[in-house]
């Protein structure tokens, strides 16, 4: 029965690693019932992958409103302390008492920043936007996206010319730029830890037969989200990368890397729904466009998703072909792409020429490539396995298993409860 006042302040806090939708949810749910939370995010903004999305399925509403509510909740909650541009180096200790080492990378912009944007005009250096998967450029000083939170600019230390340039310093009227900023490492003591490090889109260049990186008009589903997003590189107009042409035929290749022992052996859970959703993006902009979805099995779990699938199936311009895309080729002249598959229903090999192909690449947990040192168990694919018997360290969201946003928020709430239980030693 831990009453708030008798709770020891240090061992009584929770560390949440990752500030995406799962981390935000765990942090907020725990903080709003009275526990102190440290939230550590590697990017210069909170919101993670969800911030890159155009719309949620199946309601087709933009994620921005939900994120905005969460950011407001964070601003109003004194119990959450968050660090952006920070990474957890190591976690050691036992349930109830962990020592955590955190490194914070320099933002080079202080809290004086008002996000006026004068620095951007002054900055002479350009960089590829990772947020837009290289489809757009930003200056070396940039705002990650239109509604990024915290509302501060950031300098990409790898490309900024620092002392040899200082144009941004000259342009800034608020003395908000400090090019001398250094990485700092600090320690925290916490009682429990929730890993919510999320996922990365599987590296499509590894799918060597599918032409990503070789054919201009082969993109990934996450790139499609950015293309369709109003704050994206094309302001929401879906056009193909090679010549900014409007698209009239688009093929989706499901299970691009997922359910494949040579890549990700598991089902990434969201890609079928994501492609169905993205079909609506295209159909909305191009009433005559034809869409071809190549699949092994369409997976639309649950009643609401099934309904959504049925709705898309009723669209006369969306075609479903049972057969995994095995190869994609580019016509060097027109830059059209040809997808190759066997239609398993008719037993015919298909070579279909389309304006653009979208690879429904799957989710790879961040833990596959970046692991936190310490008493954290990862499975062979990089997903965190929480030891519920022992307690202390838990996982939520896609760090745990591939999941949609709804699933993430549910199990993030559950993780908050488990973290609290460790604190009160139940």
């Amino acid at each position, binding site marked *: 029965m831990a009453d708030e006042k008798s709770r020891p302040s240090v061992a009584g806090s929770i560390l949440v690693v990752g500030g995406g939708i799962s981390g935000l949810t765990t942090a907020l749910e725990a903080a709003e019932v009275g526990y102190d939370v440290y939230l550590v995010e590697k990017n210069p903004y909170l919101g993670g992958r969800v911030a890159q999305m155009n719309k949620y399925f199946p309601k087709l509403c933009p994620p921005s409103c939900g994120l905005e509510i969460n950011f407001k909740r964070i601003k109003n909650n004194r119990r959450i302390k968050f660090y952006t541009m920070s990474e957890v180096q190591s976690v050691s200790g036992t349930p109830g008492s962990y020592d955590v080492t955190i490194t914070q990378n320099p933002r080079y912009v202080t809290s004086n920043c008002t996000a006026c944007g004068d620095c951007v005009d002054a900055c002479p250096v350009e960089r590829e936007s990772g947020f837009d998967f290289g489809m757009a450029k930003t200056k070396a000083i940039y705002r990650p996206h239109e509604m990024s939170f915290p509302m501060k600019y950031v300098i990409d230390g790898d490309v900024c010319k620092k002392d040899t340039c200082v144009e941004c310093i000259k342009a800034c009227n608020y003395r908000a730029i400090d090019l001398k900023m250094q990485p700092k490492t600090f320690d925290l003591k916490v009682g429990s830890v929730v890993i919510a490090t999320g996922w990365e889109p599987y590296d499509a260049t590894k799918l060597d037969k599918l032409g990503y990186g070789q054919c201009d008009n082969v993109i990934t589903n996450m790139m499609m989200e950015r293309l369709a997003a109003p704050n994206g590189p094309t302001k929401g107009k879906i056009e193909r990368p090679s010549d900014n042409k409007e698209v009239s035929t688009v093929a989706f290749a499901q299970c691009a890397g997922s*359910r494949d022992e040579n890549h990700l052996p598991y089902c990434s859970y969201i890609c079928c729904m994501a492609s169905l959703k993205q079909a609506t993006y295209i159909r909305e902009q191009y009433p005559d466009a034809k869409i071809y979805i190549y699949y092994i099995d369409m997976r639309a779990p649950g009643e609401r998703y099934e309904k959504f699938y049925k709705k898309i199936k009723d669209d006369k311009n969306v075609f479903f072909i049972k057969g995994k895309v*095995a190869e994609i080729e580019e016509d060097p002249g027109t830059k059209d792409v040809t997808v190759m598959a066997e239609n398993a229903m008719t037993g015919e090999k298909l070579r279909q020429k389309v304006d653009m192909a979208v690879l429904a690449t799957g989710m790879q947990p961040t833990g596959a490539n970046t692991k936190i040192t310490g008493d954290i168990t990862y499975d062979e694919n990089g997903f965190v396995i929480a030891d519920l018997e022992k307690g202390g360290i838990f996982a939520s969201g896609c760090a745990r298993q591939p999941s949609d946003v709804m699933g993430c928020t549910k199990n993030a709430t559950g993780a908050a409860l488990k973290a609290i239980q460790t604190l009160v030693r139940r």
Partner: protein
Amino acid sequence: MAADVTKGTVQPDLDFIRMLKKSGGDTLKKCMQCANCSVACPLAPDSRPFPRKEMIWAQWGLKDKLISNPDVWLCHQCNDCSVQCPRGAKPGDVLAAIRNMAIGEFAFMKPLAKIVRDKAKLPVLFAIPTVVLLLTLLVTGKLFGFGEGDEVAFSKMFSIPVIDVVFIPLFLLVVFAAGKGVMSFWGALETADAKVGKKRYIKPSPFDFVKYYILPVLGDIITHTRFAKCGGNKSRYTAHLGIFFGFMGLFLVANIDAVTHNLGFHTPYPMLSPPKFIGNLSALALGIGMLLVIFKRKKDEAEGTQVGSYADWSLIWMIVAVTVTGIVSEVTRLIGIGFVAYPVYFAHLVFVFCLFLYLPYSKLAHMVYRTTAMVYAKYTGRE
């Protein structure tokens, strides 16, 4: 238990599935019908490509459909499908297992086929030719010595006429058995196609049949054209070409020797004579080809893209045994070590006998079945 899919019900032949899994197709149940393999295959035609459909037929135990299907033979097993398979279902190995089952199904003199395909019966396999050859020695009175003399000459042990008496009937028997197998295979192919309404009503004349269907296929085989298309597997192409021409060369030389000897020429020919030269070159090609095959297979098996079955390895070792005993007996004959040369030569004859006698039942039967399937594919316009 006939499988009949036309009525909408499937009667799986469970025994067939079990046998298939045992003879190298143990991964077949992993297939999820994603159809990646049909595109990965550089040889599969656009219409009804393989091996996706074969995989589901195999899972359903549709034995009749599988063995009366030319497609399993149009595969040259480059294993591109297995390498790219997202499930490790190894369609390449499953098709090999189906071919192996088909050879057994169409075999003439099935008991002999059973012995060839059963690992436990290996001693019986060798016992048959050994007994035949020992009896031959007994009959010719050479079992307990044949006046070796100084020069090693195998004709002292088995004179050419004796070899002819043993091997010519054997050859005819093999041709007959293989022919019977091929005829029932062809019949099955036609019956299966007739069932789905595909039939050639106007048959070509025998002359046209040879000209338009058999000869082009033989040309294809000699040049290994299809094999060359076979995906990421160049070393297999080279290896098979070496083995193929090695065999052809040796077969040719053996016949030249037999015929010319009977015409009164002295055999064996000296080392630099054309027949001997071709023979030695062929043996070399065979040896190198076999080394490549073994190396490649071991590598693929280590990488897990291929499972070697008894049918594969028994044939490989049999050919290796023929090659090695052939070369050793020749070399020891030339050096003049009789006590090694004669027994090794005897062993060589045993292995050659095996290779011949079991041709219609071992993996070597692919020679006739694949050729038949390729002719059939041409004949029915399936390419």
